[in-house]
Every structure is written in structure tokens, then in C-alpha cells.
């Protein structure tokens, strides 16, 4: 208690970090352990649970932090984490790997997966092509009606996706404003086609791309571009030689988010183009015809794809962070 101020402060800092780590330990491990308990490894699970609780309690006690917050935090927070992680882990751990492999080898699944991934990729590229300029304008320029534009960009997030599908049909469908003339003059039908899927994915993905780009550009000081200009770069060269390299990571993570969002899109896709079937449409169909247990291996497969994207997103987010 009579330690000098500096020492006290240092100890306080350490204690705070220790407390946080103990809580996060509990938040993550309690759900894991509960899942283990559920799926039968009782003894190991109980031991790990006991050790993690004891460790967290001991950690808090050694840092002279009260135990009550720990209990409240880990019960309330743990429940929420548990709610998210339980269905995911249950699906992963209770599906037989061999059935997942068999499902992955099914030609119908493979074609649906290929359609989904490629259509989502095209939607992502198109939205980047148009979203980067819009994001840049939103980041750099002040103009009348800017908030209206930003609101419109965010609209696909709040519109129910089934409604988005219906609304798109009225434009691009067989009798739609653009769909009818396209069909009449060029014999092109966007609905019920691969390009219909791309359209639906584009619609729901735009907010992700534009907002990510805008936030990325906002982090680049416009004076950085001024300096580049003063050194002889045209505005386009300043954009490509300074602004884009500095927003690379934001753009990449925006692209991955959009791709993931597009892959998971079902509502609008199923309405504008039930055929060719995307992986979600296929899953929905299996569920309708054969029941939910039948869809388990396919669900697990899709979950693994989503997790892989998620991991790569996190990797991009931490990539070369130390550099700037």
C-alpha cells in the first residue's frame, strides 16, 4: 500500500490486463467445455471446466480484483457466446466426416457450389468496380444530398431480401421494365439465369463494398494526395500510387465480406433465379423434400466454406499491421 505512485500504476495496468484475459478465457472456454460435455467426453470436459474456473478465480484473486464481476460477466456473456457457438460446434462435431466427403463429391452439390462461388465472385468484382469510385466520392467530397446517397447505399441492408428479390423481378424479370425489352430485342432473360443470381448478390453486397471503401479512403489524409500531386502525379496517378496502396487492406476485407455475404444470400436469389440452383437453394430444397437431418452433411460443408472465408478475412485484417 505504501508503494510509490509509479509502481502502483504499473501494478494497476497489469491487473487490468490480467482481469480481461481471465474473463476472455472463461468466455471462450466455458462454451467449448459445455459442448464437450454434451457430446460425451464427460470426464475430460469436467476437468477442463474446473481448471479454467479455478485458474480464472486464482488469477483475479492474485490481482486483488473482486470476484463478483467475473461471475456476472462469465454467466451473462458466456450465455450469449454459448448461444452462437453451440449450434456451430454441434453441427461440426456431430456430423460424420465421411458423409461430408460423400456430399462434397455429389455432382449436384459441386455444380451448385461452383455456381454460388463464381456468381458471388462476379458480383464482388462488379460491386468493387463501381463501389470504389462511389466510396471515394463519399469519403472526399461534400455535396448536397450526400446523406441521401449514403442512405440509399445502406438500403439493401434493411430491406427484407425476399422483397429485394421481388423488386428486382419487376425490373429484370420476364415482364420487367428492363427485362421485357431485353427479352424482346436481345432474347436475353436475366431472371431464372446465372446472371439473375449475380444481380441479386450484387444488390445485397453493394452496402458492404461501398462502406468499406469509403471507410478505407477516409483513413487516408487527403493532404497525402496533395503532396503526391505537388511531386508531379496527376490525380489518377496519386490515386493509384498513393491512395489505393494505402487502402489495399480495407478494400480486400471489403471484398471478402461482400463475397461472403453474396455466398450466403438466399431470399432474393431464390426469387429471381430458383434455377440454376445455388448451394443455398439446393439446401432449402433438400430440407423441404427430405427433412433437416438429411441436410446435415451439406450444412456442415457450407459451414466449413464460410469458416474458411471468415478465417481468411481475419488474416487479412491482421496482415502486416505493424508496418503502418
Amino acid at each position, binding site marked *: 500500500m505504501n508503494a510509490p505512485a509509479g509502481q502502483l500504476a504499473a501494478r494497476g495496468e497489469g491487473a487490468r490486463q490480467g482481469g480481461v484475459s481471465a474473463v476472455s478465457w472463461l468466455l471462450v472456454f466455458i462454451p467449448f467445455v459445455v459442448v464437450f460435455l454434451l457430446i460425451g467426453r464427460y470426464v475430460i470436459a469436467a476437468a477442463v471446466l474446473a481448471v479454467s474456473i479455478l485458474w480464472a478465480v486464482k488469477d483475479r484473486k492474485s490481482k486483488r480484483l473482486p470476484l463478483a464481476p467475473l461471475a456476472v460477466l462469465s454467466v451473462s456473456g458466456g450465455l450469449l457466446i454459448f448461444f452462437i457457438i453451440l449450434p456451430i460446434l454441434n453441427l461440426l462435431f456431430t456430423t460424420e466426416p465421411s458423409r461430408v466427403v460423400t456430399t462434397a463429391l455429389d455432382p449436384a452439390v459441386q455444380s451448385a457450389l461452383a455456381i454460388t462461388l463464381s456468381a458471388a465472385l462476379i458480383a464482388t468484382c462488379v460491386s468493387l468496380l463501381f463501389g470504389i469510385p462511389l466510396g471515394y466520392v463519399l469519403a472526399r467530397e461534400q455535396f448536397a444530398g450526400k446523406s441521401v446517397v449514403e442512405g440509399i447505399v445502406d438500403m439493401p441492408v434493411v430491406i427484407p431480401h425476399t422483397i429485394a428479390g421481388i423488386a428486382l423481378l419487376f425490373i429484370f424479370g420476364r415482364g420487367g421494365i428492363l427485362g421485357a425489352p431485353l427479352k424482346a430485342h436481345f432474347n436475353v432473360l436475366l431472371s431464372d439465369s446465372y446472371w439473375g443470381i449475380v444481380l441479386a448478390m450484387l444488390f445485397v453486397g453493394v452496402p458492404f463494398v461501398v462502406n468499406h471503401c469509403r471507410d478505407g479512403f477516409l483513413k487516408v489524409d487527403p493532404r497525402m494526395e496533395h*503532396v503526391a500531386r505537388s511531386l508531379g502525379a496527376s490525380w489518377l496517378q496519386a490515386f493509384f500510387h498513393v491512395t489505393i496502396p494505402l487502402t489495399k487492406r480495407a478494400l480486400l476485407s471489403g471484398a471478402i465480406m461482400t463475397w461472403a455475404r453474396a455466398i450466403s444470400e438466399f431470399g432474393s436469389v431464390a426469387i429471381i433465379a430458383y434455377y440454376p440452383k445455388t448451394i443455398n437453394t439446393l439446401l432449402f430444397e433438400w430440407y423441404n423434400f427430405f427433412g433437416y437431418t438429411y441436410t446435415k452433411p451439406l450444412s456442415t460443408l457450407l459451414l466449413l466454406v464460410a469458416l474458411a472465408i471468415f478465417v481468411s478475412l481475419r488474416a487479412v485484417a491482421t496482415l502486416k499491421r505493424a508496418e503502418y
Partner: protein
Amino acid sequence: MWPEFAIQDVTLRVNEGDYLVIVGPTGAGKTLLLELLLGVHQPDVGRIFVGEREVTALPPEQRGIGMVYQDYLLFPHLDVARNLGFGLRYGNRDAGDTRRRVSEIAELLGIDHLLHRYPYTLSGGEKQRVAIGRALVTEPRVLLLDEPLSALDRGTAARLRGELKLLHAAKKLTVLHVTHDLSEARQMDGPIALIKEGRLDALGTADELLRRPPTVFAAAFFGAVNLYKAEVAETAAGRRVVAGPIVAESGFAGGGIHVMIHPDEVVLVPAELAEQPNHLRGEVMALTDEGNYVAVQLRVIGLPAPLTAYVSRHFVRTEKLGLGSVVTADVNRAIHVLEG
């Protein structure tokens, strides 16, 4: 875009090879002025020339004007060598020429050992050297410096200030250097322009602006201590400028006039000499030891604010000056009359 900042009227001719320091309070429009010259903002009216060439309508990359900001703004994704060489990418130079120019400029600024480091590993002084080198490498006709030393610690700032003067002399650069730091402005030895609310308020050498500021704002900005409102009046001796007991000759016909008394030109004389013109009788209110001199504050009847005079410690000791002492201040050689 920025309604709170505006450049109103700045007509300024900077001679080739001059080192002009632009000073002014925060928000006076100093940075905006530089950015107008740089070309990232367009003026609504007015024209900008570099030499004989009008550049008002030209984009920044065609103006031949270099810019260095207070916070360096090095390109974080490029190492020092590529930061320095950035401006050479756009001039169709071959790689050997670029390398040679980069190493020349790096040597000149003493940063040749940093060429392969990234900006985030550099100290503030090193970063600012790189920023200056990056601007110089394209040999701009004019170099704009926006508070180039303000983010640096005092020692580094003083060293870099000396180097800037040497660079200016060696490369025959035309430099516009914005600062809010008065002592920095004085030490650059060049003319000083004072900007107030987007207007050019005063222009002159440090000595002129300190001793004979043209406006009240300039006087106050450059630290005038004794400033009194005055008026033109008919006296027995003719038209004179009068501020309480102070009477001065001047060509001013009327309007807003102030009288400024230089505290270091005030002579304290024995009290009984008070009857002569501009010999002000006052009572000592405060004595402040400023290190090399003592500031004496006098209460003078007829003056709205105390009169400050600088005297030596020796004087205070021999004259036994203390609170309440009554002395006479001879201000005859200390008077400067100004507009405003």
C-alpha cells in the same frame, strides 16, 4: 468547403530566392493560402503567378511548387529511397538517374543511412528531413513549408532551422514558410508577412515589424507592451498626436491612431524632470526580473494602462527602485505612431 476559413485579399510579391515567412494567428488562413498556391483549392477570384507564368488554372502537378507539411505525410507504404524518388517517377527518368538524384539529396540532408528504412521507424526530425528532400528532388521553383518545425522538439527544430537556411542559400530556393512561432519567424532572417483573417496585414523585415509595426494588430502580434489609443489634436505647437500625457509629431490626419512606446527605449530619469515634454511621472507598481533585464511597471496619470520600461539590474540597485518609488520616464525616443 471550409466556411470558417477564407482568404480575402492577399497581394504578395515574393522575389525569386527570397525566404518569406508567413505568420498569423490560428485560423488566419495561412495553410489555405499555401494550398491555394499549391493548387489543391481554386480561388474564386485572383491570380497566381510563378515567375512570368500564370498558374491559377493549372493543376498542382504542373505548377512546379513543392510542399512540406508539419506532420511530414511521408508515404507509409514506401521506404525512404522511394519516398525521396517519388517525384522522379513522373518525369521519364531512367533508373540510374533517379538513384543518383536520390542519393545526392539524401547526402545533402544527412539521411543517406536511412534509405532502406520505412517511415514508421524514423524519428520526427528524420521524417521532416525526408519530407523536405522529397519536395526538393524535383527541383521546384517554389517550396512551401507549412509549420515545418512545429512538431519537432526544440533541439531538433533549431538544428533543422539552421539547415533550412543553409539549403535556401545553397540551392537559391524561393521559400514560403508558414509558422505561428514568432521566434522561428525572426530567426529565418527573411521578410515576414503577417496574415489576419485572410488579409495581408503587414509585410516587412523582423526588425521593421518589431520596431515600426504598421498596424495595431501587427504591433500586438509582435508583442508590443505599451499600446495606447491616441487622437489628433491642435496644441500650442500645432497639430499633434496625443495620448494622455504623450504628445507626438506625425503625418496622420485623423482616424484610428495608436501610440506605441518601446519599453527598451524608455529612459528613467530623476523625478524632478517631469515638467519637460514626454517626461511622464509615474509610480512603480511592479518589478519583474526577466533574467537579463528588469521590467518596471509604472502607473502614469492620464494613461489608461500601466507603462512598462525595461531597465538594467544595476539601475534598479543604484536608484534603489522599489514598489511605490516615484520616477519620471522619458519616452521621447520610444514613441511610434501607428494606424488602427
